[in-house]
């Protein structure tokens, strides 16, 4: 670290607690909308592809292309169409989650032992029952892993939305920090988004554990 006299201005932090809280809240909301809508779209898409595997190439291809496009560029392409605002930001954020969520969803469903599926059918589950009562519960760990990755990624991307007028911690990092050469703001902004990412990640891990009690059973001898 540099030894500029007062490098980190704790007084500034305390003076601006309510602003920081507000920006953090904005960040959380933007993330929740992004991941939430992403899941809402990815879920039926995943089930559709699972049923009709031929689609897999096209959908993954499109999602993959979207993923490779830098977020700033995506904003730049969207703004003339959808204007400057929340919708534009969310369209981009959601697009980025799609590849991760769909890939993980498919991997989860594909990873189920075939004998479990065969037995389920042989015992008299309908296709729908098999999906909801057997396949999805068993695919859950991988699906949640995907949601974790998507969430952490989105938290990072929300920061960029500050460049197109959205708030969140990106506002703190860029407008208050970089643009004004203000180190404290940069560090606080980054620190808070790391904190958010860690909390979200750990929270989802706990959720996964709660939803999959069978994953912890160990084989006792044979």
């Amino acid at each position, binding site marked *: 670290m540099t030894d500029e006299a007062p490098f980190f201005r704790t007084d500034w932090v305390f003076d601006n607690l309510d602003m920081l809280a507000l920006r953090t809240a904005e960040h959380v909301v933007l993330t929740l909308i992004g991941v939430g809508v992403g899941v809402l779209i990815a879920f039926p898409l995943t089930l559709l592809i699972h049923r009709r595997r031929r689609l897999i190439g096209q959908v993954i291809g499109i999602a993959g292309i979207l993923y490779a496009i830098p977020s700033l560029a995506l904003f730049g392409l969207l703004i003339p169409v959808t204007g400057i605002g929340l919708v534009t930001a969310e369209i981009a954020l959601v697009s980025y989650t799609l590849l991760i969520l769909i890939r993980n969803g498919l991997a989860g469903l594909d990873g189920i032992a075939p004998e*479990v599926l065969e037995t389920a059918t042989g015992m008299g*589950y309908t296709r729908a029952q098999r999906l909801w009562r057997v396949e999805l519960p068993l695919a859950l760990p991988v699906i949640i892993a995907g949601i974790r990755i998507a969430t952490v990624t989105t938290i990072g991307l929300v920061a960029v939305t500050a460049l197109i007028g959205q708030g969140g911690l990106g506002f703190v990092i860029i407008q208050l920090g970089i643009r004004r050469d203000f180190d404290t703001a940069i560090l606080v902004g980054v620190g808070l988004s790391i904190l958010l990412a860690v909390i979200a990640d750990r929270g989802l891990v706990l959720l996964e554990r709660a939803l999959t009690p069978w994953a912890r059973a*160990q084989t006792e001898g044979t």
Partner: protein
Amino acid sequence: MTDPGLAPALAASGSVVAFEHVTKRYGNGPTAVTDLSLEIRAGEICVLVGPSGCGKTTTMKMVNRLVEPTSGRVTIDGADVASLPPVELRRRIGYVIQQVGLFPHLTVAENVAVVPRLLGWRQPRITERVEELLDLVGLEPGEYRSRYPAALSGGERQRVGVARAMAADPSVLLMDEPFGAVDPIRRERLQNEFLRLQARLRKTIVFVTHDVDEAIKMADRIAILQVAGVLAQYDTPDRLLAAPASPFVEHFVGADRGLKRLSLARVRDLPLEPVVTVAAGESISAARQRVPDGTRWVLVIDARRRPLGWVAAHDLKGDGGVDPDMAVPGSTLLQPESTLRDALSAMLASSVQLGVVVDEQDAVLGVISVAAISQTLQDGAGSPQP
């Protein structure tokens, strides 16, 4: 082969399953099953056996419509299986496969309860039934009910699979190499227990295996299939061994048919010989007095009369207590349902040529000797079943 001595009068709770000129062809490709016609009587175990590619599993799967016949029909109690929606049909038929396929995310109790739940049973009835079934397959309900499959051993999983298949009390059971995934010793035990179960329940069972010895042991009737699902012979095990219908059958059954016929007789068909036992910790001098002259081997048992090993009679000298560590381990323990074939293999592998026969609690019942079995071989193969 089910026990005829035990309640033949019990009405079979199984259905009649019949194949009528069933053929299965995949597209323009190979024929899996060719014009198969056979009838499985109610309450019987019919074993489908043959080399790989003979269509035995395909045939079995046509009963619960996991595979649909290209021509011909399969009936249960006279009704074409195609007349019922497949899902409903499958809920009335038990299904067990080699890898079991227990649902990892459900507890043992929930696994067993799957079909009853699909059928809409009320919870109290389900709970009771689960308890009953776990007991039936030898798993203590209190201990196993809430366990997850990942915490079970291979043998335990197999049992849960059987319990699960029987949960809704189906009249037909389909079993595809159900005991294939465990080691031979455990497999023998599972087979014996299953035969005991079947003696009580008398379900109609279609059983697939590639192991002709298992077929001989388990079947009331065996259907030997050739490549492309051609029926080579459909007969009781005894008639199959005594009179193979073709060179293929003869070859498949194996050149050691005489020895195989030993599989038809069970340990309980022979009179059990008494054995001299001493308890672990018993005083040697007291024990020595009970040993008649000429006895070579003495069996050491524990407080519950379970065998611990053999001690040579002349080694019982000196003072002190009978030390179980002195005992030489004998062959694997035999049960009354064990075939003479299994008994002979077990005994020949041990240094003491006697097989200890135990009951369900592993308590000693008596012994049989290699000599007695050889005598049986000479007399013809034990008491053939009608």
